[in-house]
């Protein structure tokens, strides 16, 4: 495949055409922050953490959803981007009840890590005055909507990898929330195969394994990526012939 030459944070690189800026940045030794993006799942570009500036483009673009272009001059870490990411992250914290000290994912949480990385050391917005009820109806897993960041990775893992379409997005605006099947308790969702891919894809502690306590999250996030990569690779191989 023809290579594309571009510059990311001053580093000149060559990337295959069709690759997105988030992937290409790795070639330049740059990690662009992200939350809704997970290798192996479709791209939605919704969290806006990976916004980057491209010289000559009036508005920042999401790196996860922008293909590399010849002679692009990309900046991933300008003061403006840093400031905006911090404000966005603060708002994300204030959308739910994120108390790391009392969360199963603490220490293995992408939201917690992003805050540390971006220097969000306090939050200027006030969290909602109510806490949403946890769904503990599933025999193996739990769902805490107050910790959900609406990245929809679980929804995509469930639909695109498992093919169950158990999880869906309902409501809109600030009322947007996850639903299982027709809004039934997770444990009563007939379509759920209990495969756990949603739990593994969750960047935070919204979906968790029952029986795990603060800081005890174990499931690997890369599971979904590994599965899709393996499926892609092995389906091309004629191993069983």
């Amino acid at each position: 495949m023809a290579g594309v030459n571009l510059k990311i944070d001053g580093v000149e690189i060559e990337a295959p055409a069709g690759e997105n800026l988030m992937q290409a940045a790795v070639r330049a030794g740059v990690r662009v922050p992200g939350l809704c993006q997970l290798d192996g799942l479709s791209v939605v570009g919704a969290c806006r953490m990976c916004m980057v500036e491209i010289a000559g483009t009036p508005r920042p673009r999401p790196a996860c959803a922008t293909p590399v272009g010849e002679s692009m001059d990309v900046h991933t870490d300008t003061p403006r981007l840093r400031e905006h990411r911090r404000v966005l992250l603060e708002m994300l914290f204030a959308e739910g009840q994120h108390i790391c000290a009392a969360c199963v994912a603490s220490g293995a949480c992408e939201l917690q890590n992003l805050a540390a990385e971006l220097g969000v050391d306090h939050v200027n917005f006030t969290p909602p005055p109510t806490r949403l009820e946890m769904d503990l109806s599933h025999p193996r897993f739990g769902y805490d909507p107050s910790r959900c960041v609406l990245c929809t990775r679980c929804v995509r893992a469930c639909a695109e990898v498992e093919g169950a379409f158990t999880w869906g997005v309902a409501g809109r605006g600030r009322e947007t929330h996850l639903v299982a099947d027709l809004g039934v308790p997770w444990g009563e969702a007939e379509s759920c195969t209990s495969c756990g891919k949603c739990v593994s894809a969750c960047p935070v502690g919204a979906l968790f394994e029952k029986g795990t306590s603060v800081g005890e999250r174990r499931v690997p996030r890369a599971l979904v990526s590994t599965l899709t990569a393996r499926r892609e690779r092995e389906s091309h191989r004629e191993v069983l012939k």
Partner: protein
Amino acid sequence: MSALRSAAAAAGAAGAAAGPLPADDPRVALLTTQLKKVRYRADALIDVLHAVQDIYGYLSPEVLTTVADALQLPPSRVLGVATFYHLFTFEARGDHTCTVCTGTACFVKGADALMAGVSEAFGVAQGATREDGSLSLLEARCIGSCGLAPVALVDGTIVAKAKPDAVIAAIRNAMEASVSAEGAVREAAAGEGGAA
């Protein structure tokens, strides 16, 4: 076996959340007609949901399960669409509805006072239905009658250049009309020896 029937069976199996649609309910036939009209196409979901709301007044889990099955859509997707659009409702509306337009022109001309006036007079919160089920107080985002602002709709009839008192009176009239109509029906029935 019709799609509807299998949906009903599936919904029955799902338990309390979505019981089967009663087979002898005439509304089921109306819904089936609508589903046939769109040839069970999944992309007609929004049209179908409009039809369901026309037929049933609101979207119940039972009917949504039926629709999901008939259109071969995951239930999570059906609920996702149904809850995205503001015109769909999941609870039965009151006997009467008052819709106050809160578009810009009406806002500038005092829609807030209109809403507050009705809300206070009938003890019903914005977006809610009175406990006795007699009145739902709704808001609309511009009904396009800006020249007549502020406007309210009482059971679908426009009250133009509305003052709170006028809207309150229109609601009272609508309520009284239906009460006297009911009374008339009862009297008529009584007159026929209560055969009704």
